[in-house]
């Protein structure tokens, strides 16, 4: 394993460069930028609004909190909202506006791996490149392709897939029905999980759901026929509720004669309500921590603030990424704040080098990106649908 050492070297080189380029960061603090904008990008409406809407609320809150604390040396950060509806084409159109405006200094998002992969070349090719910090894109290619603009605070598929498979094996899985939802994210993740299961001699059967599919009777008959004891469904979320409701209707009751493991999008308490309780007892893993489920005063304070801003019941519809979205916004805002101001302007190139070199204080503790743009020590969390909540049952460190 020579790789870590190389990473450390690259990271150190990055710090060195930033130190040279940035000059005296403290000295620049008196310098007030004219205008600072960041963009929030994700599927904020449409069929994946269940993951996007809560993230957008979190980012809005992060920007407000940052501005209340003084903004960037007194300048209030303006948030622009890019609703890409998980379409790379829509994303490119929205991003073009940001690329053209040098006061747009970074993006929190995009949330979907498919959107990142379909639009990143435009961000990287811009002058200067437009950096992003994703709160949920987990496909390995997002950071493995050498793009300096790419960062994410969540864990990767190649950590999550094996962790998911291992969890099912530990729980005594004998036969696993592996499903994905035909997306860059879910297919790659299900591949990782299935490969691990096969390598450990667990028979699997592979199937796919379609986006916004509601009728699962055909699939459920196949699960029964295969006599699976676990169903693994890598999905962004919206398909889970009808799926598990119909499993129950057709005689597969989670926790009794079938077990269910979902992924990030399914770490969502609203699925319990939407499935009218059929989801109770299901497991879901998340590549980010749920602030309500981890210890730490910063996370607890954030949960309180979120409820105060959006209502006492707002957590039930906050989706799986309301924690990581706030965290991602915090890192980007701090990187901007740490960047030097020259003639009232902050350069995106400086923001990128500060993202690479700095350590950030977030609701989940301190965060630092490695040379590829992944966070060091990102964990996988296993949740269980219990009553009306998703409760952490296990943490697998990444």
């Amino acid at each position, binding site marked *: 394993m020579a790789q870590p050492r190389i990473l450390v070297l690259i990271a150190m080189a990055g710090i060195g460069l930033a130190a040279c380029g940035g000059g005296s960061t403290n000295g620049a603090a008196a310098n007030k930028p004219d205008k600072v904008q960041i963009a929030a990008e994700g599927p*904020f*409406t*449409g*069929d994946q*609004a*269940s993951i996007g*809407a809560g993230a957008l609320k979190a980012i809005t809150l992060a920007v407000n909190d940052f501005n209340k604390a003084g903004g960037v040396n007194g300048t209030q950060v303006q948030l622009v909202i890019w609703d890409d509806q998980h379409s790379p084409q829509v994303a490119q159109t929205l991003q073009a506006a940001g690329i053209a405006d040098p006061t747009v200094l970074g993006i929190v998002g995009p949330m979907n791996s498919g959107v990142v992969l379909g639009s990143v070349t435009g961000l990287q090719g811009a002058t200067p490149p437009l950096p992003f910090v994703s709160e949920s894109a987990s496909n390995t290619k997002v950071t493995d392709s050498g793009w300096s603009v790419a960062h994410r605070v969540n864990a990767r598929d190649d950590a999550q897939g094996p962790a998911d498979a291992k969890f099912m094996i530990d729980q005594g899985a004998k036969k696993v029905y592996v499903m994905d939802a*035909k997306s860059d994210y879910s297919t790659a993740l299900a591949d990782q999980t299935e490969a691990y299961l096969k390598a450990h001699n667990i028979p699997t059967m592979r*199937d*796919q*759901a*379609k986006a*916004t599919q*509601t*009728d699962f*009777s*055909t*699939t459920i*008959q*196949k699960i029964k*026929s295969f006599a699976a004891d676990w169903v693994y469904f890598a999905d962004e979320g*919206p398909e889970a*509720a*009808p799926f598990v*409701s*119909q499993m129950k*209707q*057709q*005689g597969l009751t989670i926790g009794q004669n079938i077990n269910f493991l979902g992924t990030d999008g399914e770490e969502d308490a609203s699925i319990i*309500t*939407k*499935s*009218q*309780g059929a989801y109770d007892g299901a497991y879901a893993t998340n590549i980010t921590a749920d602030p309500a489920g981890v210890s730490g005063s910063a996370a607890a304070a954030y949960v309180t603030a979120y409820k105060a801003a959006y209502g006492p019941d707002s957590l039930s*519809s906050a989706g799986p990424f309301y924690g990581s979205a706030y965290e991602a916004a915090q890192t980007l805002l701090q990187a901007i704040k740490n960047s030097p101001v020259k003639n009232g302007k902050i350069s995106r190139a400086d923001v990128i080098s500060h993202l690479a070199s700095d350590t950030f204080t977030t609701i989940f503790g301190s965060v630092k990106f490695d040379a590829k743009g992944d966070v060091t020590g990102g964990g996988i969390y296993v949740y269980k649908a219990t009553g009306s909540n998703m409760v952490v049952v296990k943490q697998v460190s990444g």
Partner: protein
Amino acid sequence: MDYFLQNFPQQLVNGLELGSLYALVALGYTLIYGILEMLNFAHGDVYMVGAFLAAGVAGFLVHNEVAAVPAGLAVALMMLVAIGGAGLLGVGIERVAYRPLRNANRLAPLITAIGVSLFLESAVQVWISPAPVLVPTNALVPQTVFHVSNVVTPLTGVILFVLAVALMVALDAFVFRTRFGSAMRATAQDREAATFMGIDVDRVILVTFFLASALAGMGGVLFGLRYASVDFFMGYLLGIKAFTAAVIGGIGNIRGAMVGGLLLGVLESLVGGFISSQFQDTFVFLALITVLLIRPQGLFGQPLTDRA
């Protein structure tokens, strides 16, 4: 082979349930095409609005603890509101978007239809909910599950199939056995001649739109009861598939739409069950292309106009 025999009955039942839904919506395409020779691409979205109306009624009843009303009554209320609402919406769409263009280029109403479709989707997305909305069926209908040997289906699935078939039979009787049905067929055959015969063509068209949209609304209710979840985009793919069913059956032909819908549902279920879920939609549209190549007028030959 064993695998096939064991699973075939269940997949057939699954397919018939899905197919009866397709048929119900396909009827609307066919009715309107039969009368006006236009494709009402907003039809799938009328179905979606019907489903949302039913979900709204269900949510209201359950939220206000009025669920103490007997299950049958609650469901009847959902159906009434959805049928009425969808029917009126259909009539409204005809008045606003199609009637002014009745003598225009044939492409014009097609484009307004697409416009209405996008409008309805966006309106529901923005004003009601961008995320799927729950239909609280648990509190409304018994969650009975029927087992016949190794075939399993919930009560709501049986309701879906039985009501859909009953409505199709009723519609068939209405069109072919009543005075007004004759007026509809006369209008379909030759609008001008029908006017000369003293038929109020505008009224026939309005009633046709009401009927077609009410059927779609009913489809929305049945869908909500069976699958317990509705979303603003649900009418899009279903609309295209119902349209496909109508074309396979022979567009303009009522019985063709029914058979086309059922066939399509069964085909989809069997492909998903025995070939691959990935290819379900591929086969659906392959069936469309095949039928169009071999029998362009659809399985049931002549359109409504020639039957009268």
